[in-house]
């Protein structure tokens, strides 16, 4: 695809470096990209691939001192963006090209009313009166399905939810009818149901207004749902480009192929994923040749020469690989290792929760009485069976992390009972509780902050042993080496510090630490959410292997339905501090009965489905300070009927162990999702 004159955005052979202490980081090396009128273009890559840098560069948003362009050209609507001055850039930004970002919570000025922030942008670029600008701002908010736009205009950002704020930002971005809208992971920080609403909104509005979109994301399924064309980046280079359907069905570049294979969506549940070995190169030295060759299964001597970005077959689908078109993606089907099959779940309960409730006081009056309560858990009955993986799925605020803390005995329930191996945790004194606690360990979401930066790895890994009274450095080191090998790290690196490891390696260190005391139960609190998909596959594989070889029980908490579907035996879906549906992973996630589960799963972007996802209505989650009466989901439910105003109980529907907290479970139509 040549950089046609009809392109709105045309990036040609662009290179850029970030000067750092370690030397110049070559963030972009010869990036080429075009956005044509009216099309939605995806830009995909893992962290550090340079996708956001590319997006920011298009409107020259990187601070001049931070980045240096070293070659290539960049034009937007015919302007030479590398030569243009700051004043001219101000006229282009927000008018010809506007941009929205990842964090809607912090992207609006907290001290200025919403209306004024939009009006300010409109009046910056167009000579119209305050009143007219206000009228247009209100109309824009209405167009973005913001309920009660007139009131929202007078609101401050803190009065709106994340989803609403992102709508405001989209309204602002569209306010001067830009030719291109650049979106940098605009839905990554949002819950999946809100993400579906925002994606649908961007798609519809861009189509209706004829605005081109450059959409940056790490999520191939989002690309599938939204984009006409897609670019794939790796290590600051463009590795593949093509029409979305072509590229995902017949990827040419080994990296794209490997990336797709590492997705749990496309793999058989409970089977090892085809992870990409190794990590992304650090870009501190100039890489000659293909940057993927160290991780590529097909690399040969020739790969040390830079491959051309060419199209082997049909026009418009090209890849930067010497063997583009010659390498067929191998079929993912692999024989299941015997060890994985050996992990057998029993029906014996290891941990049992009965009617567990947790409330947090919200503010205190000056007499020390809480003014209100946040109801984090509202009567949870659940058992975790020895040897199984119990998945917990839910959106933010559903209580899944509180559940983890309760199970870990880090948080005392305000009502209800928790038993471990038949022993009531509340009946134990501090010393006995400490002994029992050794049986459960935790792995947190962010390996960066869950490892003390000032300790060498061997001290980190053996901290539970140290706490338990082992003081001999020799013994601790020996155990650390053993654990490092167990999680697939090199035993000779136990003297290093956390910052010397990559994100995936740090998470393995955290897992090794959790295993130090031979626990029975490991609570995994979003263990792969901070990781890239290729690394996520590595970590999921390690977890499955360890479970099989050590007979571990997992409580696996995640907002990612595909990951839970892959690793869990049974699944509980949570909503407002309650379990609304419980059963095997296949029952709950492939054939959901509860209307909320259906909304949730329906909102997850699918790689395979050709149908565009239906956007649920724009409503905010009810508050867990003032709990709704009756069924908590009632106000958002499409199947609301008489009887819903009564509290619902978790009850088996039909004969199976599949339980649903809905009195209409049996009446609902069958689930038909491609």
């Amino acid at each position, binding site marked *: 695809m040549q950089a046609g004159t009809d392109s709105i955005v045309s990036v040609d052979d662009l290179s850029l470096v970030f000067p*750092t*202490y*370690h*030397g110049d980081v070559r963030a972009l090396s010869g990036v080429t990209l075009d956005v044509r009128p009216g099309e939605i273009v995806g830009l995909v890559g893992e962290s550090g691939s340079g996708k956001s840098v590319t997006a920011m560069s298009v409107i020259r948003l990187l601070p001049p001192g931070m980045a240096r362009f070293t070659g290539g050209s960049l034009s937007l609507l015919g302007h030479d963006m590398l030569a243009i001055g700051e004043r001219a850039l101000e006229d282009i930004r927000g008018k010809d090209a506007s941009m929205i970002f990842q964090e809607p919570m912090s992207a609006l000025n907290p001290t200025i009313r919403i209306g004024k922030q939009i009006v300010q942008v409109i009046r910056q670029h167009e000579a119209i009166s305050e009143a007219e600008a206000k009228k247009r701002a209100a109309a824009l908010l209405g167009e973005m399905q913001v309920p009660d736009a007139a009131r929202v205009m007078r609101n401050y950002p803190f009065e709106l939810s994340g989803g609403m704020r992102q709508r405001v930002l989209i309204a602002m971005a569209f306010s001067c009818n830009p030719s291109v809208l650049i979106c940098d992971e605009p839905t990554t920080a949002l819950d999946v149901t809100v993400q579906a609403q925002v994606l649908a909104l961007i798609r519809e509005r861009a189509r209706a207004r004829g605005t081109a979109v450059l959409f940056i994301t790490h999520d191939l399924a989002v690309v599938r749902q939204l984009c006409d064309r897609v670019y794939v980046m790796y290590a600051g280079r463009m590795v593949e480009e093509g029409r979305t359907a072509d590229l995902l069905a017949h990827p040419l570049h080994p990296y794209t192929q490997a990336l797709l294979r590492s997705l749990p969506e496309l793999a058989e549940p409970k089977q*090892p994923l085809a*992870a990409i*070995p*190794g*990590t*992304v*190169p*650090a870009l*501190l*030295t100039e*890489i000659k040749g293909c940057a993927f060759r*160290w*991780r590529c299964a097909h690399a040969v001597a020739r790969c040390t020469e830079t491959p051309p970005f060419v199209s082997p077959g049909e026009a418009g689908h090209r890849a930067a690989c010497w063997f583009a078109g010659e390498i067929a993606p191998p079929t993912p089907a692999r024989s299941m290792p015997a060890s994985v099959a050996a992990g057998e779940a029993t029906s014996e309960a290891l941990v049992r929760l009965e009617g567990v409730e947790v409330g947090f006081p919200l503010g205190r009056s000056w007499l020390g009485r809480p003014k209100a309560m946040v109801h984090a858990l509202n009567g949870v009955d659940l058992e975790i069976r020895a040897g199984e993986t119990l998945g917990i799925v839910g959106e933010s605020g559903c209580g899944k992390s509180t559940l983890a803390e309760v199970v*870990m005995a*880090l948080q005392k329930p305000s009502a209800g009972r928790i038993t471990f191996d038949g022993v009531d945790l509340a009946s134990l004194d501090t010393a006995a*509780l*400490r002994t029992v*606690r*050794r049986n*459960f*360990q*935790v792995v*947190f979401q*962010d390996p960066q*902050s*869950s*490892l*003390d*930066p*000032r*300790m060498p790895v061997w001290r980190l890994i053996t*901290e*539970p042993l140290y*706490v*338990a009274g082992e003081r001999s450095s020799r013994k601790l080191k020996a155990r650390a080496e053993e654990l490092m090998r167990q*999680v*697939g*790290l*090199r035993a000779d690196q136990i003297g290093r*510090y956390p*910052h*010397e490891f990559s994100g995936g*390696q740090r998470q393995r260190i*955290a897992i090794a*630490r959790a295993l130090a*005391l031979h626990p029975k139960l490991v609570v995994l609190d979003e263990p792969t959410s901070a990781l890239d998909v290729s690394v996520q596959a*590595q970590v999921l*594989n*390690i977890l499955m*292997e360890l479970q099989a070889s050590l007979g571990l029980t997992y409580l696996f908490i995640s907002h990612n339905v595909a990951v839970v579907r892959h690793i869990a035996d049974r699944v509980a879906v949570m909503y407002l501090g309650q379990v609304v549906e419980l059963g095997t992973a296949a029952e709950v996630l492939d054939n959901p009965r509860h209307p909320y589960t259906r909304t949730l799963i329906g909102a997850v972007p699918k790689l395979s489905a050709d149908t565009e996802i239906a956007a649920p209505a724009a409503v905010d989650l009810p508050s867990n300070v003032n709990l709704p009466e009756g069924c908590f989901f009632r106000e958002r439910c499409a199947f609301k009927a008489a009887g819903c105003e009564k509290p619902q109980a978790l009850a088996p529907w039909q004969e199976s162990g599949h339980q649903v907290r809905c009195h209409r479970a049996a009446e609902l139509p069958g689930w038909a999702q491609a």
Partner: protein
Amino acid sequence: MSLESAEAEGTTPARSSSGVGYLWYQLRRSPLTMVGLGIIVVVLFIMVAAPWIAPYNPDKLDLLHRLAAPSLAHFFGTDEVGRDIFSRVLWGARTSVTVGLAIVAISMGFGTVIGAFSGLVGGRVDTLIMRFMDVVLSFPSFVMAMALAAALGPNLINAMLAIAVVRIPFYVRLARGQALSLRSKPYVKAAMSFGAPRVQIMRRHIMPNAMAPIIVQATLDIGLAILTASALSFIGLGAQQPTAEWGAMVATGRDYLLDQWWYPTFPGLAILITAVGFNLLGDGLRDMFDPRMRGR
């Protein structure tokens, strides 16, 4: 597959983001911090070497050369009893800087321990300690130090103690704030989940990680302490004649201001330059420890 495949060449950073090399890199990027460091090195050198580098005995009277203007014989001139002001300024570094360091050591030492204890114990004891500190922080601290110094008897040691005592609550707050914010870090939560006792968490995780901001604050405070101590001496509540102390020298020099400007000027300049040194270094350290600056 579980073993990391051979690490590609050039994939790991050549240098780590901690250690001496990194510190030196950060220092070089900030010329003002280098200036601060340079000043402190010089001042510390003068402190140690004063007896050898001072051209005169600081207490030697020379009534024939009273109130002499600066010259090659007396760089900063002489005072009302003919003592060499240059030598007295050099010797004054010993007094003034030692007092500054001592004040900070005392207030930081006590403050950090009390603050950490308060944060560790929590509950009612914590509330009580902190409310008490709030009250003390609302006292007019300089006046309190003045009153204390006056009541204890005007001398340098009492002035030093008075300033240090008044400064303690500040560190109590800082240390406790650090302890509390670290307590919510996932790695501390992880340690709690292993059942680690609180004292151990304090020692292994909180103390080492809390020290950086406290040390930065202490560095900035040394400048303030030197200023405050010299101010007490200036109003006659600190060092007394004939001690060579910068604030006291400015105080006596004040009477000769209009005719012998150099007399109060040079000791005051010494205070200014020393305080600038500690403030510049403190500012630089703060930027360096700022997590957002890491790796840049």
